């Protein structure tokens, strides 16, 4: 290097000193009160405290660039909250869209109206999708009455339909007791946004380890495929919804059951 001939004393001592002086003479514009701004950002539309545990799985993902370019559709009933979402995530590369509440069509009585894809056997489903299909093992639930697969623009999904049975009554407008949807992708970026926005829901952990959200009302789910494509899937039933993510698969359980029961079912998936 050209500096090899330099003497043993700091060869650029004067230059270094000048650079430090230069740093002090940079005309930095006045800083706003970030502390107040950030506090407002973090608390707008949500309680002043961070969502309670378990959320440890969320934040590591939050800084991933992928998370920030995900398009979001959020069903929110409170305008203030909707604005909070837009405020929090409405920066470059992120589009936040509010949707009218996507309630399923009333009096949906047969699977066809649920628009779940191609009817297959459970065996065929295992073979047709690239991710491992999981099935709840709850004695009262037994085996699914029908199974559907779908591959829409790279998003693979499997749906398990259970007719109403003891402990799993029909929803107000369907002949379905439990509907399970499984998607090849992660919904975590979407969870992150909902949580930060303070949307009405409960954060849960399924089987002691998998992050999930429970909604008392129907909810669409946004899934990001490994290729980064974001898909949304509308709710099919009008009951409570539990969404969780295990590995690279997102699960949605729609059933007219309470949180505890939904969690009990979810924890048996294998």
């Amino acid at each position, binding site marked *: 290097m050209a500096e090899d001939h330099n003497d043993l004393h700091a060869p650029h001592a004067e230059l270094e000193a000048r650079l430090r002086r230069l740093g002090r003479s940079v005309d930095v514009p006045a800083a706003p009160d*970030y*502390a107040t701004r950030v506090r407002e950002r973090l608390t707008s539309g949500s309680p002043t405290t*961070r969502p309670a545990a378990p959320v440890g799985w969320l934040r590591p993902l939050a800084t991933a660039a992928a998370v920030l370019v995900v398009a979001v559709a959020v069903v929110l009933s409170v305008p203030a909250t909707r604005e909070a979402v837009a405020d929090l995530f409405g920066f470059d590369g992120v589009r936040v869209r509010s949707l009218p509440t996507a309630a399923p069509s009333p009096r949906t009585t047969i699977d066809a109206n649920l628009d779940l894809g191609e009817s297959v056997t459970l065996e065929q489903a295992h073979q047709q999708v690239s991710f491992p299909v999981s099935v709840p093992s709850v004695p009262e639930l037994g085996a699914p009455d029908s199974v559907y697969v779908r591959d829409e623009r790279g998003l693979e999904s499997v749906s398990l339909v259970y007719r109403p049975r003891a402990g799993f009554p029909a929803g107000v407008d369907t002949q379905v007791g439990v509907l399970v949807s499984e998607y090849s992708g992660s919904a975590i970026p979407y969870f992150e946004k909902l949580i930060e926005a303070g949307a009405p829901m409960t954060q849960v952990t399924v089987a002691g380890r998998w992050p999930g959200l429970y909604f008392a009302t129907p909810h669409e789910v946004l899934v990001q495929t490994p290729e980064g494509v974001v898909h949304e899937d509308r709710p099919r039933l009008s009951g409570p919804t539990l969404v969780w993510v295990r590995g690279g698969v997102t699960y949605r359980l729609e059933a007219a059951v309470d949180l505890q029961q939904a969690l009990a079912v979810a924890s048996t998936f294998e």
Partner: protein
Amino acid sequence: MTRPVVTAAVTDSALVEAARSGDVASYGLLVERYQSIAHRTAFAMGAGDDTADVVQEAFVKVYLALDRFQVTQPFRPWLLRIVVNETRNRWRWMSRHRTVPLPLVGDDLTAAVPAPEQVAEERETSRLLRDAVVALPPHQREVVVCRYLLDFSERETAQVLGIATGTVKSRLSRALAALQATLRPTMAPAAMDAEGRRG
């Protein structure tokens, strides 16, 4: 602007722990503690007019990423690294040919206010040096800005830029050699003319 006084006895890691468990107020204290250096860093790294947005976004991202922070490590370089990354991201969204804005105090005064010769000379040297820093290849400019203009230690420079200290050393060495020429205008007139940035 009055702000609550941050008690030195409360460590960064204690505030991080509290923020992780849901205490936004504790996170606010961390922001207060570092907002000045974060602002300065983003601006010096080239955030320009976007500095306030960049820093605010960075603080939100830091909050969302708190679980990734190892409390045994210093918080400041970890935070500043996110600030720098946010600055770089913002940079990518804009024209790649835009020059890093690095205005100096007194930049706009020189013409109007006559200064003693020595002061004027000093200012002129500063300006030449600033222009030379801005004209450095980005990797070299970043280490010079962190190490000298922001006066970070070599270690912190490495942490903030996400590179090895050896890399900091080698980039600095190359950058200083290039900058040295601007301090010896009489010895390198050709280089200065080539710069053509005196206006």
